[in-house]
């Protein structure tokens, strides 16, 4: 198979070929490693490439499969891990100078589960320093770039994972999401990413950002591939005190059910408000497609929705500042300027600010649960804009008004994070400059299955997810 064809295989396409021994895991891994070598100098998607280890595992995998021991659909699949996910024997920097030499002696639970399923870790991806930011403009490991246009950002904080998947340098990746850090790079890189319900996927041995909002989850080109990775990493973990003892639904069973009768909610004065035109057009187009498949769309009022940015910033400032308190005093100069400033400011909120923000979350969640009596999912764009130039700290969304990047970027993604709900980002088109647009679908607690069902149905009749950047 030609290298380009190999790299365009999805997990769903590669797996049966690997199982039937029509495709060698050594050949697939080598193609991926060569692709990394060809594009990483441009994209800076990887901090560490695990070439020798990946080759060794690929060879062992080949022997294993030839001997008749096939572990399942991730066996022999090259994947990447965001660099805040502990990977045994591999440096795990969290995008930070402070952890530049940290080599964990055990895996994160999610890494261990992927390895046990036979996945081959090809590298650790670049990220916004300590996950506290949304651009992956990393002062220590270099600016990560968007494969659709390397002058544009890949968003963040899982920007490296987003760029890596889109650029065909792995068949899937893990990211982490606190206020949007899987969904934002999924949107601007034209791939699929899911933020799970808090507690659905273990955070054990993942460097935290904000304890009450952190999650880990896959980023892939297709919804079906996302399900494949999700099924392996999700589920109760006794090592994570926040892990939910809630049985995992069969997410694959619902994939072929379509969306007939599914009720989609748009939040009044919010879901389709304050957007770049191309984003609005793409999301409205996606809703029309879903209506054509039999889904219904209705508007739901959510009076408390507009407090979300302040609550997000308060919680996402205070909790990281608590985690970083010691380093901020002993190694302040080792932080990048943006993260250092955010951490300093996070020490200056009052306790009552933080508590009121946590009370706001209860209120917001209550309104969503009330809304779920009428609809099955809510939809918004993932981002109100497409990828901005690298290094930009402000963005224009509409009316030529510039806005601060951090608040603008979490306009929609902060909401499910605050309300403790799962949310999927799905590619739904491109802007006139060829930059991807993402749509966010928000579900009931622990109902990732419905999100996957909707996303898979949508991808069954559209081809946005099959497009590939010309890099």
């Amino acid at each position, binding site marked *: 198979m030609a290298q380009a064809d190999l790299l365009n295989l999805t997990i769903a396409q590669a797996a049966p070929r690997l199982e039937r021994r029509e495709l060698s895991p050594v050949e697939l891994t080598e193609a991926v490693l060569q692709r990394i070598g060809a594009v990483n100098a441009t994209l800076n998607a990887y901090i560490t490439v695990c070439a020798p280890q990946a080759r060794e595992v690929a060879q062992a995998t080949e022997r294993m499969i030839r001997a008749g021991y096939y572990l399942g659909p991730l066996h022999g699949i090259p994947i990447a891990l965001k660099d805040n996910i502990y990977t045994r024997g591999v440096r795990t920097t969290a995008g930070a100078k402070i952890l530049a030499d940290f080599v964990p002696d055990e895996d994160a639970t999610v890494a261990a589960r992927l390895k046990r399923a036979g996945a081959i870790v090809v590298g650790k991806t670049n990220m916004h320093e300590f996950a506290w930011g949304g651009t992956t403009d990393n002062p220590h490991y270099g600016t990560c770039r968007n494969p659709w246009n390397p002058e544009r950002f890949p968003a963040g904080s899982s920007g490296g994972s987003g760029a890596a998947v889109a650029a065909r340098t792995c068949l899937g990746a893990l990211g982490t999401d606190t206020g949007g850090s899987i969904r934002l790079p999924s949107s601007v890189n034209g791939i699929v990413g899911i933020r799970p319900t808090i507690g659905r996927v273990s955070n054990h041995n993942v460097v935290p950002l904000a304890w*009450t909002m952190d999650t880990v989850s896959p980023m892939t080109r297709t919804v079906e591939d996302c399900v494949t990775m999700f099924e392996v990493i999700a589920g109760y973990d*006794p090592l994570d*005190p*926040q*892990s*939910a*003892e809630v049985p995992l639904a069969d997410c694959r069973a619902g994939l072929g059910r379509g969306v007939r009768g599914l009720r989609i909610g748009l939040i009044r004065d919010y879901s389709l408000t304050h957007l770049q035109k191309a984003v609005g057009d793409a999301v409205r187009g996606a809703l029309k497609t879903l209506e054509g498949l039999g889904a219904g769309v209705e508007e739901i009022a959510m009076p408390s929705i507009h*407090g979300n*940015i*302040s*609550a997000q*910033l*308060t919680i996402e*400032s205070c909790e990281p500042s608590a985690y970083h308190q010691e380093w*901020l*005093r002993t190694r302040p100069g080792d932080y990048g300027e943006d993260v250092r*400033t955010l951490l*300093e*400011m996070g*020490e*200056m*909120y*009052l306790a*009552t*600010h933080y*508590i*009121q*923000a*946590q*009370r*706001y*979350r*209860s*209120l917001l*969640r*209550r309104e969503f649960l009330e809304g779920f009596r009428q609809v099955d999912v809510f939809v918004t764009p993932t981002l109100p804009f497409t990828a901005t130039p690298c290094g930009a700290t402000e963005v224009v969304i509409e009316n030529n008004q510039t806005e601060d990047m951090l608040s603008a970027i979490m306009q929609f993604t902060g909401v499910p994070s605050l309300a*403790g709900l799962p949310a999927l980002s799905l590619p739904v088109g491109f802007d006139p400059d060829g930059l991807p647009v993402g749509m966010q679908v928000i579900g009931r607690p622990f109902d990732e299955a419905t999100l996957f069902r909707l996303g898979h149905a949508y991808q069954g009749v559209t081809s946005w997810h099959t497009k590939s950047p010309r890099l």
Partner: protein
Amino acid sequence: MKKEAPVTRETVERLCVLADLPLPPARRDKLVAPLSGLIAAANELSRKIAEGARRGVLPVTRFPGREEA
């Protein structure tokens, strides 16, 4: 309630003392403008959530289901 006072250099200085965060003067000055906006927004949210009708709303905190070993 009196009009919102901006965060000043002196405010940041006092907060640094309270937080035991010895920032040099240049860094303190840098925080005044962004902190003003953030604190003003946090105060506005706090006012809304503190309203009497919402007294029964609990914060999102919980004990873990199991204790760590």
